[in-house]
C-alpha cells in the first residue's frame, strides 16, 4: 500500500471504495458526528458572542434562580402565596359583583317607580285645564308661550322638590337649540349640567320611542360640584301647549357607591390577611417537613465524608420519624458494612503481607540452594545440569511473578504511595535503555531516542516511572521483530509524555485496551523469550494512574504499536492532553493522509509547534509493504487511563489483498474531524517524508 498505488487522486476520494469499507465509513462518520454534537453540547462551540451575552444577562438573576432551585420552602411558600392570591381575587370579584348588582337593582326599582310617578304627574298637569293664574289676559301666541315657559319651570321645580338630594329633574326639548321660544330652553334642577349629564344615546332613544328609557351616566354639575355616577330615566311628554319635550330623572348613585367601596375595602383587607396568613401557614408547615429533610441531608453529607457515627434525631412516630429511623438504620448498616470491609481489607493486606513473608523466606532458601547447585553444575551429568539450569530459570520467573502479584495486591489494597519529586525523564529513559540494551542486542534491535534535546522534567516517582518505561521498552523490543524501537519524549502544556513505538506485529482491533488486562497475552501460542509475568502492563497502568497520568496503547496489525505514557508536570495537576499523539504519524492512516494532501503539508509544516523530534528522519523498517488497515484506533480518544482507550469499531479486518483504495477513502472521511484532534495536527510532516522513502 505504501508502494504508492494506494494513494488516491485528490479529486476522487473513495470513489472506488469497497462496499464494506463504505459501510464502515458511514458508521464511523455517524459516530463522529455524534461525538461532535456532544462536543457542542459540552460548550466547546456555538457562537461565543451570543453565549457571552446570555451569560452576562443571566448573571444578576443567577443567585435568585439558584435560591429558587435549591430552596423548597421558598418555592412552596411562593406558590401558596400566588395561588391564594388568585383565589382571593376571584372570590373578591364575584362577591363585589354580586353586591353591586343587588344594590343597583334595588336603586333601579326605586328610581323607576319614582320616575313613573313623576311622569304621571307631568302628564296630568299637561292634560289638566289651564290654571286660573295662567289665564289672565287673552290667549295670544306670545302669552301662551310665556305661559308654557313658566309651566315647564314650575313643573321641574315641583317634581324636583319631591326628593331634594335623592334625584334631580331635567326637561329638554328635542329642538332646544333651534330658533325658538324660551319655552323650549332646557331646564334643570339642582344645578345639573343637562347637556353633559344626559347621554345623547338616551336622548335619541327617548326622542324616537314613547316608552321610558334608562341608562347609567356621569352626572355633572354646573355649580362646581364633583361629578357623580348616576342613573338617568327619561320619557317623552307633551306640555300644555302640546309641544313634546323630554323629561329626565337623574338619580345619583353616591350612596350605593359608598356602600360598594366599603365592601371592597373590607374584602381587600380580609383578602390580604388571608393571603399573608396562608403564606405564613405554608411556611410553618413546610418548615416542619423541610427541617428534618435538611437535617437528613446534612447528616448524609457528613456520613459521606466518612463520619459514620452521625445519626438523625428521631421524635414522635410520624412519617418524618419513620424517615429518620430508616435513615439511621441505613447509616448503621452502612457503618457496619464499611467497618466490615475495612476490617476485611486490613485482613487482606495483612494476609498478603504475611503470605509474602511466609512465602519469601522458604523461597530465599530454595533460591540460594538452587544457585549453589547451579554454580556446581559443571560437575554434574548433562541431565542433572540441565535440570539445575531449568530450576534456576523458573525460580527467576517465580520470583518476578510473586513480586508482581504483591505489587498488584498493593495497588488493589490502596497501599501504594507515590513518592514524587522532580525528575528528568531523560535520565530515566537512558537508564531503562541501558538496561534493555542486552536484550535488544540479542534481538538485533536498535533503540533510538527522540526529543531529548531539552530537559523533560516532571514531578514523578522515579522508581515507578522507570518500572513503567522498562516494561514498555522491553515489550517493544520483544515484540518488535528485530526492527527499530523509537522512544520519543515531549513536553507541552502541563504534561510530559514518553511514547515507545515499535514496528512489530502490532495489535489487533480491540487489543489496545486488553493489553492492560491482567495475565493477558497477545498470542497464547507465541513463544516468549523473556517469560514475562503477564502483569507488567497492569502494574504500569496502575503506576500511571497513581501519578494522575495516562498509559495508553495504539496499534495496528502488522504496523507495530505505540505505547504512550503521559504524566502531569506537577503532581495533583489534572491532565488535559498529551504532547504526543497516541497514533504515531507514521501509522498507516497517517501516511495515507499525508499522501492525500501532500500539497497542504508544506504550509502546515510552518504552523506546527516546535516538535523538532518529528523532523528527524524516521526509521525505515526493512520489510514488505504493509497490509491495509483493519482496525483504526481513534487518536482523539483521550480518556483518563489506558483502559478506556477503545478503538473505534472498524468492522471485519480487511484482507491483505482487498481493494487498497478502501483505506484512503476511510481516512479521508476521518480527516473531517481530525483537525479537532490537536495532536494529529502535527501528523502531516513526517509521513510525507516517509512516503517518499518507502515509495522506492
Amino acid at each position, binding site marked *: 500500500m505504501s508502494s504508492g498505488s494506494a494513494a488516491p487522486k485528490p479529486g476522487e476520494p473513495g470513489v472506488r471504495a469497497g462496499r464494506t469499507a463504505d459501510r464502515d465509513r458511514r458508521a464511523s462518520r455517524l459516530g463522529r458526528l455524534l461525538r461532535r454534537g456532544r462536543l457542542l453540547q459540552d460548550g466547546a462551540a456555538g457562537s461565543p458572542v451570543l453565549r457571552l451575552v446570555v451569560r452576562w444577562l443571566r448573571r444578576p438573576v443567577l443567585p435568585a434562580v439558584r435560591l429558587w432551585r435549591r430552596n423548597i420552602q421558598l418555592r412552596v411558600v411562593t406558590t401558596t402565596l400566588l395561588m391564594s392570591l388568585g383565589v382571593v381575587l376571584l372570590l373578591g370579584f364575584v362577591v363585589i359583583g354580586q353586591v353591586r348588582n343587588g344594590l343597583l337593582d334595588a336603586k333601579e326599582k326605586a328610581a323607576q317607580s319614582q320616575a313613573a310617578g313623576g311622569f304621571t304627574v307631568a302628564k296630568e298637569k299637561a292634560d289638566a285645564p289651564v290654571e286660573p293664574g295662567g289665564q289672565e289676559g287673552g290667549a295670544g301666541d306670545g302669552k301662551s308661550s310665556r305661559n308654557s315657559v313658566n309651566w315647564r319651570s314650575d313643573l321641574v321645580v315641583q317634581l324636583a322638590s319631591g326628593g331634594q338630594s335623592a334625584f334631580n329633574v331635567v326637561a329638554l326639548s328635542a329642538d332646544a337649540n333651534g330658533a325658538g321660544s324660551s319655552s323650549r330652553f332646557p331646564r334643570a334642577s339642582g344645578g345639573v349640567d343637562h347637556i353633559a349629564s344626559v347621554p345623547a344615546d338616551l336622548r335619541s332613544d327617548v326622542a324616537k320611542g314613547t316608552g321610558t328609557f334608562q341608562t347609567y351616566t356621569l352626572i355633572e354639575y354646573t355649580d362646581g360640584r364633583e361629578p357623580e355616577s348616576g342613573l338617568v330615566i327619561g320619557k317623552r311628554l307633551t306640555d300644555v301647549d302640546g309641544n313634546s319635550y323630554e323629561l329626565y330623572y337623574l338619580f345619583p348613585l353616591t350612596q350605593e357607591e359608598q356602600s360598594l367601596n366599603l365592601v371592597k375595602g373590607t374584602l381587600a383587607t380580609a383578602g390580604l390577611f388571608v393571603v399573608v396568613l396562608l403564606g405564613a401557614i405554608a411556611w410553618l408547615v413546610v418548615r416542619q417537613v423541610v427541617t428534618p429533610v435538611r437535617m437528613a441531608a446534612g447528616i448524609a453529607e457528613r456520613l459521606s465524608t466518612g463520619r459514620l457515627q452521625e445519626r438523625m434525631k428521631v421524635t414522635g412516630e410520624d412519617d418524618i420519624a419513620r424517615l429518620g429511623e430508616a435513615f439511621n438504620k441505613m447509616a448503621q448498616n452502612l457503618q457496619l458494612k464499611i467497618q466490615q470491609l475495612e476490617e476485611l481489607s486490613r485482613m487482606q493486606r495483612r494476609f498478603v503481607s504475611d503470605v509474602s513473608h511466609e512465602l519469601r523466606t522458604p523461597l530465599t*532458601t530454595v*533460591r540460594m540452594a538452587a544457585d549453589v547447585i547451579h554454580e556446581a553444575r559443571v560437575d554434574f551429568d548433562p541431565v542433572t545440569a540441565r535440570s539445575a539450569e531449568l530450576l534456576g530459570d523458573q525460580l527467576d520467573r517465580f520470583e518476578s511473578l510473586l513480586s508482581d502479584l504483591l505489587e498488584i495486591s498493593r495497588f488493589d489494597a490502596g497501599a501504594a504511595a507515590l513518592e514524587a519529586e522532580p525528575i528528568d525523564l531523560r535520565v530515566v529513559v537512558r537508564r531503562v535503555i541501558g538496561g534493555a540494551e542486552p536484550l535488544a542486542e540479542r534481538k538485533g534491535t536498535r533503540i533510538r531516542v527522540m526529543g531529548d534535546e531539552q530537559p523533560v522534567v516532571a514531578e514523578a516517582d522515579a522508581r515507578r516511572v522507570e518500572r513503567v518505561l522498562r516494561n514498555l521498552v522491553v515489550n517493544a523490543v520483544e515484540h518488535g521483530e528485530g526492527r527499530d524501537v523509537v522512544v520519543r519524549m515531549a513536553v507541552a502544556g502541563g504534561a510530559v509524555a514518553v511514547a515507545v513505538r515499535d514496528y512489530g506485529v502490532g495489535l489487533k482491533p480491540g487489543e489496545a485496551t486488553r493489553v492492560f488486562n491482567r495475565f493477558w497475552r497477545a498470542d497464547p501460542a507465541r513463544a516468549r523469550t523473556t517469560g514475562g509475568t503477564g502483569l507488567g502492563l497492569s502494574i504500569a497502568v496502575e503506576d500511571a494512574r497513581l501519578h494522575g497520568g495516562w498509559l495508553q496503547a495504539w496499534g495496528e496489525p502488522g504496523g507495530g504499536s505505540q505505547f504512550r505514557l503521559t504524566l502531569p508536570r506537577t503532581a495533583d495537576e489534572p491532565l488535559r492532553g498529551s504532547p504526543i499523539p497516541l497514533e504515531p504519524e507514521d501509522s498507516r492512516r497517517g501516511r495515507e493522509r499525508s499522501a492525500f494532501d501532500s500539497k497542504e503539508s508544506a504550509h502546515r509544516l510552518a504552523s506546527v509547534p516546535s516538535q523538532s523530534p518529528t523532523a528527524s528522519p524516521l526509521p525505515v523498517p526493512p520489510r514488505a509493504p504493509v497490509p491495509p488497515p483493519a482496525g483504526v484506533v481513534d487518536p482523539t480518544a483521550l480518556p483518563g487511563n489506558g483502559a478506556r482507550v477503545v478503538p473505534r469499531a472498524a468492522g471485519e479486518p480487511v484482507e491483505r489483498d482487498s481493494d487498497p483504495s478502501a483505506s484512503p477513502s476511510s481516512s479521508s472521511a476521518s480527516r473531517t474531524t481530525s483537525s479537532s484532534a490537536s495532536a494529529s495536527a502535527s501528523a502531516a510532516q513526517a509521513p510525507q517524508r516517509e512516503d517518499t522513502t518507502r515509495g522506492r
Partner: protein
Amino acid sequence: MKGRVLVVDDDTALAEMLGIVLRGEGFEPSFVADGDKALAAFREAKPDLVLLDLMLPGRDGIEVCRLIRAESGVPIVMLTAKSDTVDVVVGLESGADDYIVKPFKPKELVARIRARLRRSEEPAPEQLAIGDLVIDVAGHSVKREGQSIALTPLEFDLLVALARKPWQVFTREVLLEQVWGYRHAADTRLVNVHVQRLRSKVEKDPERPEIVVTVRGVGYKAGPS
C-alpha cells in the same frame, strides 16, 4: 578481610543455607535464632557485620537493630520480606545500614556484605572540612568546635563522600554507588533515610540543613564551609 558475620534469623533452613553460602565465600558465620538472645550473641561473637531478619520471635528485628546500634557502629544489613516503603524506612531508621529483600540471590547478598565490609580497609590520613565540621578521615571522627559527634561508619562514609567534593552535586544513584557500593541502581530510599539520619546528628537545625544541602530534583551536596 575480616569476615565474622552474625546471622540473626529464626528460620533454621534459611540460616543453614546462609551459613553454607557465607562459608563458601570465606566468611565466618555464627547464628542466633531468637531476638531476645541476639544482643548477648552479638556481644559474644563481636561480628564485623550483622545479618538481621526483621521478623523474629521474641524481640523483633527493629528492636534488636536499635539495641545493637546503641552500643556499636557495626554494619547491619536487614533481611526483609517486605519491600513496602514503611517497613524499609522503619528498618533503616532504627539503624540498619542496608537492607536486602527476600528472595535474594547469594551473589547479591555477598556483594552487599562485601560492600559493607570494604570500608574497613584503612584509609589514608586526610583532614576535611564541611560547614563548621572538621572530619578526620583516618581517625573516623567528626568534630564541631572540638566537640566530637558520634556517627555510624556508614553515616561517616556518606559525610566524607560529600565533603571530598563540595563543588559536586551527588545524585542519589551516585551516592548509592560510592557509599553503598552498588554497581547498578537500587532503591534510593536508602539515601533519603540515611541523609535524614546524618542531618539529625550533624545539623544544628535539621529542618534547615546547612551541612548536607538538598538540590531539588537532583540530589545532595555539601554545604559551604
